[in-house]
Protein backbone atom coordinates (compact mmCIF):
# COMPACT_ATOMS: atom_id res chain seq x y z
CA UNK A 1 0.00 0.00 0.00
CA UNK A 2 2.96 2.30 0.68
CA UNK A 3 3.99 2.09 -2.95
CA UNK A 4 0.50 3.05 -3.95
CA UNK A 5 0.58 5.96 -1.53
CA UNK A 6 3.82 7.18 -3.16
CA UNK A 7 2.28 6.86 -6.60
CA UNK A 8 -0.48 9.21 -5.58
CA UNK A 9 1.69 11.74 -3.76
CA UNK A 10 1.32 14.40 -6.46
CA UNK A 11 -2.41 13.83 -6.62
CA UNK A 12 -2.74 14.18 -2.88
CA UNK A 13 -0.82 17.41 -2.99
CA UNK A 14 -3.20 18.66 -5.63
CA UNK A 15 -6.20 17.53 -3.59
CA UNK A 16 -4.86 19.67 -0.74
CA UNK A 17 -6.04 22.62 -2.81
CA UNK A 18 -9.60 21.68 -1.88
CA UNK A 19 -8.82 22.44 1.75
CA UNK A 20 -8.10 26.04 0.79
CA UNK A 21 -11.60 26.54 -0.62
CA UNK A 22 -13.45 28.50 2.01
CA UNK A 23 -17.00 29.90 2.09
CA UNK A 24 -17.60 33.68 2.17
CA UNK A 25 -16.33 35.48 5.29
CA UNK A 26 -18.74 35.30 8.21
CA UNK A 27 -20.67 32.44 6.67
CA UNK A 28 -20.35 30.19 9.72
CA UNK A 29 -21.43 33.00 12.06
CA UNK A 30 -24.90 33.02 10.57
CA UNK A 31 -25.23 29.33 9.84
CA UNK A 32 -26.39 28.10 13.30
CA UNK A 33 -29.05 30.80 13.58
CA UNK A 34 -30.41 29.86 10.16
CA UNK A 35 -30.62 26.21 11.17
CA UNK A 36 -32.25 27.03 14.50
CA UNK A 37 -34.81 29.36 12.93
CA UNK A 38 -35.74 26.67 10.42
CA UNK A 39 -36.10 24.16 13.24
CA UNK A 40 -38.33 26.59 15.17
CA UNK A 41 -40.37 27.25 12.03
CA UNK A 42 -40.75 23.52 11.55
CA UNK A 43 -41.94 23.09 15.12
CA UNK A 44 -44.50 25.83 14.60
CA UNK A 45 -45.62 24.20 11.39
CA UNK A 46 -46.09 20.94 13.27
CA UNK A 47 -48.32 22.49 15.93
CA UNK A 48 -52.10 21.71 15.95
CA UNK A 49 -52.92 25.24 14.77
CA UNK A 50 -51.15 24.64 11.51
CA UNK A 51 -52.00 20.96 11.17
CA UNK A 52 -54.56 21.75 8.48
CA UNK A 53 -52.12 23.66 6.35
CA UNK A 54 -49.44 20.98 6.74
CA UNK A 55 -51.99 18.38 5.61
CA UNK A 56 -52.66 20.51 2.56
CA UNK A 57 -48.93 20.94 1.97
CA UNK A 58 -48.39 17.18 2.07
CA UNK A 59 -51.27 16.74 -0.38
CA UNK A 60 -49.70 19.26 -2.74
CA UNK A 61 -46.33 17.60 -2.33
CA UNK A 62 -47.86 14.36 -3.59
CA UNK A 63 -48.96 16.30 -6.66
CA UNK A 64 -45.44 17.52 -7.22
CA UNK A 65 -43.86 14.13 -6.70
CA UNK A 66 -46.30 12.08 -8.78
CA UNK A 67 -47.54 13.73 -11.97
CA UNK A 68 -49.64 10.65 -12.73
CA UNK A 69 -51.55 11.29 -9.54
CA UNK A 70 -52.36 14.81 -10.75
CA UNK A 71 -53.70 13.41 -14.01
CA UNK A 72 -55.88 10.81 -12.38
CA UNK A 73 -57.13 13.35 -9.84
CA UNK A 74 -58.05 15.80 -12.61
CA UNK A 75 -59.76 13.03 -14.62
CA UNK A 76 -61.83 11.93 -11.65
CA UNK A 77 -62.86 15.54 -11.01
CA UNK A 78 -63.94 15.95 -14.65
CA UNK A 79 -65.83 12.66 -14.52
CA UNK A 80 -67.56 13.73 -11.35
CA UNK A 81 -68.54 17.04 -12.93
CA UNK A 82 -69.86 15.28 -16.05
CA UNK A 83 -71.89 12.83 -14.01
CA UNK A 84 -73.28 15.72 -12.01
CA UNK A 85 -74.34 17.59 -15.14
CA UNK A 86 -75.96 14.52 -16.69
CA UNK A 87 -77.66 13.61 -13.48
CA UNK A 88 -78.97 17.13 -12.97
CA UNK A 89 -80.42 17.17 -16.48
CA UNK A 90 -82.64 14.18 -15.81
CA UNK A 91 -86.03 15.25 -14.36
CA UNK A 92 -86.61 11.89 -12.71
CA UNK A 93 -83.22 11.97 -11.10
CA UNK A 94 -84.32 14.06 -8.14
CA UNK A 95 -84.36 11.87 -5.10
CA UNK A 96 -87.70 11.49 -3.42
CA UNK A 97 -86.31 12.39 -0.09
CA UNK A 98 -85.49 15.92 -1.11
CA UNK A 99 -87.37 18.91 0.11
CA UNK A 100 -89.65 19.22 -2.88
CA UNK A 101 -90.56 15.59 -2.77
CA UNK A 102 -91.31 15.81 0.91
CA UNK A 103 -94.06 18.32 0.34
CA UNK A 104 -95.52 15.85 -2.16
CA UNK A 105 -95.85 18.38 -4.89
CA UNK A 106 -95.09 17.74 -8.51
CA UNK A 107 -91.78 18.97 -9.69
CA UNK A 108 -91.90 21.67 -12.25
CA UNK A 109 -89.36 21.31 -14.94
CA UNK A 110 -87.30 24.14 -16.22
CA UNK A 111 -88.86 23.76 -19.61
CA UNK A 112 -92.27 24.54 -18.16
CA UNK A 113 -90.99 27.51 -16.25
CA UNK A 114 -89.53 29.25 -19.24
CA UNK A 115 -93.01 30.19 -20.32
CA UNK A 116 -94.05 33.60 -18.96
CA UNK A 117 -97.46 32.15 -18.06
CA UNK A 118 -97.37 30.22 -14.86
CA UNK A 119 -98.49 26.68 -15.20
CA UNK A 120 -101.69 25.71 -13.44
CA UNK A 121 -99.84 23.41 -11.13
CA UNK A 122 -97.38 25.99 -10.02
CA UNK A 123 -100.10 28.53 -9.52
CA UNK A 124 -101.88 26.15 -7.21
CA UNK A 125 -98.95 25.34 -5.08
CA UNK A 126 -97.10 28.60 -5.16
CA UNK A 127 -93.92 26.77 -5.95
CA UNK A 128 -92.15 27.70 -9.10
CA UNK A 129 -88.92 26.99 -10.74
CA UNK A 130 -87.88 29.69 -13.07
CA UNK A 131 -84.98 31.70 -14.22
CA UNK A 132 -87.29 34.66 -14.82
CA UNK A 133 -87.40 36.83 -11.70
CA UNK A 134 -90.70 38.51 -12.66
CA UNK A 135 -92.42 35.39 -13.80
CA UNK A 136 -95.47 35.97 -11.70
CA UNK A 137 -96.55 38.65 -9.33
CA UNK A 138 -99.39 36.61 -7.93
CA UNK A 139 -99.20 36.43 -4.17
CA UNK A 140 -98.40 33.15 -2.67
CA UNK A 141 -101.57 32.15 -1.01
CA UNK A 142 -100.28 29.47 1.21
CA UNK A 143 -97.05 27.95 2.28
CA UNK A 144 -96.96 24.24 3.01
CA UNK A 145 -100.71 24.12 2.72
CA UNK A 146 -101.24 26.68 5.47
CA UNK A 147 -102.46 30.23 5.28
CA UNK A 148 -99.61 32.68 5.23
CA UNK A 149 -100.59 35.68 7.32
CA UNK A 150 -97.67 37.70 6.05
CA UNK A 151 -98.52 37.26 2.40
CA UNK A 152 -99.83 40.54 1.05
CA UNK A 153 -100.64 41.39 -2.51
CA UNK A 154 -98.15 43.86 -3.84
CA UNK A 155 -98.68 45.94 -6.88
CA UNK A 156 -95.50 46.67 -8.72
CA UNK A 157 -95.37 48.84 -11.73
CA UNK A 158 -92.31 49.39 -13.78
CA UNK A 159 -91.80 52.66 -15.60
CA UNK A 160 -91.70 52.30 -19.35
CA UNK A 161 -88.21 52.16 -20.61
CA UNK A 162 -87.11 55.39 -22.17
CA UNK A 163 -84.47 53.98 -24.43
Amino acid sequence: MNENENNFEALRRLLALKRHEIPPPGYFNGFPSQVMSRIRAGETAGSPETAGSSWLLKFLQVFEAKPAFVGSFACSLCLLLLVGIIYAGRPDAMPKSTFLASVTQPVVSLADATSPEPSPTSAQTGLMVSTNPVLSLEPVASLFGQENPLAQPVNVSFPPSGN
Partner: protein
Amino acid sequence: MAEPAERQDTESPAPVMEDELVRQARRGDLRAYDELVRRYQERIYATVYHMTSNHEDANDLAQESFIKAFQALKSFKGGSSFYTWLYRIAVNKTINFLKQRKNRTHLSLNDLDFNAEHDPDLMALISDKTPRREAGLTELQEKLNEAMLKLSEPHRLVVVLHDVEGLSHDEIAKIMDCNIGTVRSRLFYARQQLQGFLSDYLKPT
Protein backbone atom coordinates in the same frame (compact mmCIF):
# COMPACT_ATOMS: atom_id res chain seq x y z
CA MET B 1 2.01 18.56 1.40
CA ALA B 2 1.97 15.81 3.92
CA GLU B 3 -1.04 13.60 4.24
CA PRO B 4 -3.71 15.32 6.30
CA ALA B 5 -3.56 14.24 9.90
CA GLU B 6 -6.27 11.65 10.31
CA ARG B 7 -8.85 12.67 12.84
CA GLN B 8 -9.14 10.05 15.50
CA ASP B 9 -12.05 9.57 17.87
CA THR B 10 -9.78 10.74 20.66
CA GLU B 11 -9.49 14.09 18.91
CA SER B 12 -13.22 14.65 19.02
CA PRO B 13 -14.05 17.51 21.35
CA ALA B 14 -14.88 16.32 24.88
CA PRO B 15 -17.04 13.23 24.29
CA VAL B 16 -18.70 13.42 27.69
CA MET B 17 -19.71 16.97 27.03
CA GLU B 18 -21.02 15.93 23.64
CA ASP B 19 -23.11 13.16 25.18
CA GLU B 20 -24.60 15.67 27.58
CA LEU B 21 -25.38 18.07 24.77
CA VAL B 22 -27.02 15.29 22.79
CA ARG B 23 -29.06 14.27 25.82
CA GLN B 24 -30.24 17.83 26.36
CA ALA B 25 -31.02 18.28 22.67
CA ARG B 26 -33.07 15.08 22.71
CA ARG B 27 -35.19 16.64 25.43
CA GLY B 28 -35.84 19.55 23.05
CA ASP B 29 -33.21 21.94 24.38
CA LEU B 30 -32.51 24.10 21.34
CA ARG B 31 -29.55 25.83 22.98
CA ALA B 32 -27.78 22.52 23.36
CA TYR B 33 -28.47 21.67 19.76
CA ASP B 34 -27.25 25.10 18.69
CA GLU B 35 -23.94 24.26 20.36
CA LEU B 36 -23.77 20.96 18.48
CA VAL B 37 -24.43 22.78 15.21
CA ARG B 38 -21.61 25.23 15.95
CA ARG B 39 -19.31 22.35 16.75
CA TYR B 40 -19.84 20.40 13.51
CA GLN B 41 -21.02 22.95 10.96
CA GLU B 42 -17.64 23.39 9.31
CA ARG B 43 -16.97 19.69 8.84
CA ILE B 44 -20.47 18.93 7.58
CA TYR B 45 -20.50 21.91 5.24
CA ALA B 46 -17.03 21.07 3.91
CA THR B 47 -17.96 17.46 3.17
CA VAL B 48 -21.14 18.42 1.36
CA TYR B 49 -19.39 21.24 -0.48
CA HIS B 50 -16.56 19.02 -1.72
CA MET B 51 -19.13 16.47 -2.88
CA THR B 52 -21.25 18.98 -4.80
CA SER B 53 -18.70 21.67 -5.76
CA ASN B 54 -21.51 24.14 -5.27
CA HIS B 55 -21.75 26.55 -2.34
CA GLU B 56 -25.51 27.12 -2.53
CA ASP B 57 -26.32 23.42 -2.71
CA ALA B 58 -23.89 22.74 0.12
CA ASN B 59 -25.53 25.42 2.24
CA ASP B 60 -29.02 23.96 1.70
CA LEU B 61 -27.92 20.36 2.21
CA ALA B 62 -25.89 21.13 5.33
CA GLN B 63 -28.80 22.99 6.88
CA GLU B 64 -31.23 20.23 5.98
CA SER B 65 -28.88 17.64 7.43
CA PHE B 66 -28.80 19.42 10.79
CA ILE B 67 -32.57 19.85 10.74
CA LYS B 68 -33.14 16.19 9.90
CA ALA B 69 -30.70 15.15 12.61
CA PHE B 70 -32.61 17.21 15.16
CA GLN B 71 -35.90 15.67 14.10
CA ALA B 72 -34.39 12.18 14.26
CA LEU B 73 -32.52 12.68 17.53
CA LYS B 74 -35.02 10.50 19.39
CA SER B 75 -34.05 7.58 17.17
CA PHE B 76 -30.33 8.09 17.87
CA LYS B 77 -29.40 5.14 20.05
CA GLY B 78 -25.82 6.15 20.73
CA GLY B 79 -24.36 3.09 19.00
CA SER B 80 -21.90 5.37 17.21
CA SER B 81 -20.67 8.83 18.07
CA PHE B 82 -23.05 11.67 17.36
CA TYR B 83 -20.85 13.13 14.70
CA THR B 84 -20.53 9.80 12.83
CA TRP B 85 -24.31 9.58 12.89
CA LEU B 86 -24.57 13.20 11.73
CA TYR B 87 -22.06 12.58 8.95
CA ARG B 88 -24.13 9.62 7.80
CA ILE B 89 -27.24 11.75 7.55
CA ALA B 90 -25.39 14.47 5.61
CA VAL B 91 -23.74 11.97 3.30
CA ASN B 92 -26.99 10.12 2.51
CA LYS B 93 -28.78 13.38 1.90
CA THR B 94 -26.03 14.57 -0.41
CA ILE B 95 -25.87 11.32 -2.38
CA ASN B 96 -29.65 11.32 -2.82
CA PHE B 97 -29.46 14.92 -4.00
CA LEU B 98 -26.69 14.13 -6.48
CA LYS B 99 -28.59 11.14 -7.84
CA GLN B 100 -31.64 13.31 -8.44
CA ARG B 101 -29.52 16.02 -10.03
CA LYS B 102 -27.70 13.47 -12.20
CA ASN B 103 -25.67 15.28 -14.85
CA ARG B 104 -27.08 18.73 -14.24
CA THR B 105 -23.96 19.92 -12.49
CA HIS B 106 -23.25 23.55 -11.94
CA LEU B 107 -20.03 24.67 -10.32
CA SER B 108 -20.27 27.39 -7.72
CA LEU B 109 -16.84 27.29 -6.17
CA ASN B 110 -15.71 29.05 -3.06
CA ASP B 111 -12.72 31.35 -3.22
CA LEU B 112 -9.30 30.07 -2.25
CA ASP B 113 -7.95 31.41 0.99
CA PHE B 114 -4.83 33.53 1.27
CA ASN B 115 -2.65 30.62 2.33
CA ALA B 116 -3.16 28.77 -0.96
CA GLU B 117 -0.86 31.19 -2.77
CA HIS B 118 1.85 30.57 -0.20
CA ASP B 119 1.58 26.81 -0.05
CA PRO B 120 4.90 25.52 -1.45
CA ASP B 121 3.39 22.22 -2.52
CA LEU B 122 0.70 23.92 -4.52
CA MET B 123 3.12 26.39 -6.02
CA ALA B 124 5.28 23.47 -7.08
CA LEU B 125 2.35 22.09 -9.01
CA ILE B 126 2.13 25.24 -11.09
CA SER B 127 5.87 25.73 -11.42
CA ASP B 128 7.74 25.68 -14.70
CA LYS B 129 8.13 21.93 -14.45
CA THR B 130 4.40 21.44 -14.73
CA PRO B 131 3.25 20.49 -18.22
CA ARG B 132 0.47 23.07 -17.98
CA ARG B 133 2.59 25.73 -16.29
CA GLU B 134 0.37 28.53 -17.45
CA ALA B 135 -2.37 27.15 -15.26
CA GLY B 136 -3.05 29.36 -12.30
CA LEU B 137 -4.46 28.22 -9.02
CA THR B 138 -7.99 29.16 -10.03
CA GLU B 139 -7.81 27.10 -13.19
CA LEU B 140 -6.32 24.25 -11.25
CA GLN B 141 -9.16 24.49 -8.75
CA GLU B 142 -11.72 24.36 -11.52
CA LYS B 143 -10.10 21.40 -13.23
CA LEU B 144 -9.79 19.56 -9.95
CA ASN B 145 -13.46 20.05 -9.13
CA GLU B 146 -14.52 18.98 -12.60
CA ALA B 147 -12.43 15.84 -12.28
CA MET B 148 -13.95 15.11 -8.88
CA LEU B 149 -17.44 15.39 -10.32
CA LYS B 150 -16.57 12.73 -12.89
CA LEU B 151 -16.18 10.16 -10.13
CA SER B 152 -19.13 8.15 -8.94
CA GLU B 153 -20.62 9.33 -5.64
CA PRO B 154 -19.15 6.54 -3.45
CA HIS B 155 -15.68 7.01 -4.95
CA ARG B 156 -15.85 10.78 -4.65
CA LEU B 157 -17.01 10.46 -1.07
CA VAL B 158 -14.05 8.30 -0.09
CA VAL B 159 -11.61 10.76 -1.63
CA VAL B 160 -13.31 13.70 0.06
CA LEU B 161 -13.46 12.07 3.48
CA HIS B 162 -9.91 10.70 3.38
CA ASP B 163 -7.74 12.94 1.22
CA VAL B 164 -9.53 16.22 1.82
CA GLU B 165 -11.17 15.90 5.23
CA GLY B 166 -8.55 13.62 6.71
CA LEU B 167 -10.82 10.97 8.21
CA SER B 168 -9.40 7.53 8.92
CA HIS B 169 -10.38 4.43 6.94
CA ASP B 170 -12.18 3.15 10.01
CA GLU B 171 -14.27 6.27 10.42
CA ILE B 172 -15.12 6.30 6.72
CA ALA B 173 -16.20 2.66 6.93
CA LYS B 174 -18.53 3.53 9.79
CA ILE B 175 -19.98 6.51 7.95
CA MET B 176 -20.45 4.61 4.70
CA ASP B 177 -21.62 1.49 6.52
CA CYS B 178 -19.13 -0.78 4.73
CA ASN B 179 -15.91 -2.59 5.66
CA ILE B 180 -12.45 -1.08 5.62
CA GLY B 181 -11.37 -3.18 2.64
CA THR B 182 -14.11 -1.61 0.55
CA VAL B 183 -12.99 1.84 1.63
CA ARG B 184 -9.38 1.09 0.64
CA SER B 185 -10.28 -0.37 -2.74
CA ARG B 186 -12.61 2.50 -3.52
CA LEU B 187 -9.92 4.98 -2.54
CA PHE B 188 -7.36 3.29 -4.77
CA TYR B 189 -9.70 3.17 -7.76
CA ALA B 190 -10.84 6.77 -7.25
CA ARG B 191 -7.25 8.02 -7.06
CA GLN B 192 -6.34 6.13 -10.20
CA GLN B 193 -9.22 7.70 -12.04
CA LEU B 194 -8.39 11.16 -10.77
CA GLN B 195 -4.79 10.74 -11.80
CA GLY B 196 -5.95 9.96 -15.30
CA PHE B 197 -8.29 12.95 -15.44
CA LEU B 198 -5.63 15.32 -14.11
CA SER B 199 -2.53 13.92 -15.76
CA ASP B 200 -1.80 17.26 -17.44
CA TYR B 201 -1.58 18.97 -14.12
CA LEU B 202 0.41 16.38 -12.18
CA LYS B 203 4.13 16.08 -12.35
CA PRO B 204 6.05 13.10 -10.98
CA THR B 205 7.73 13.67 -7.68
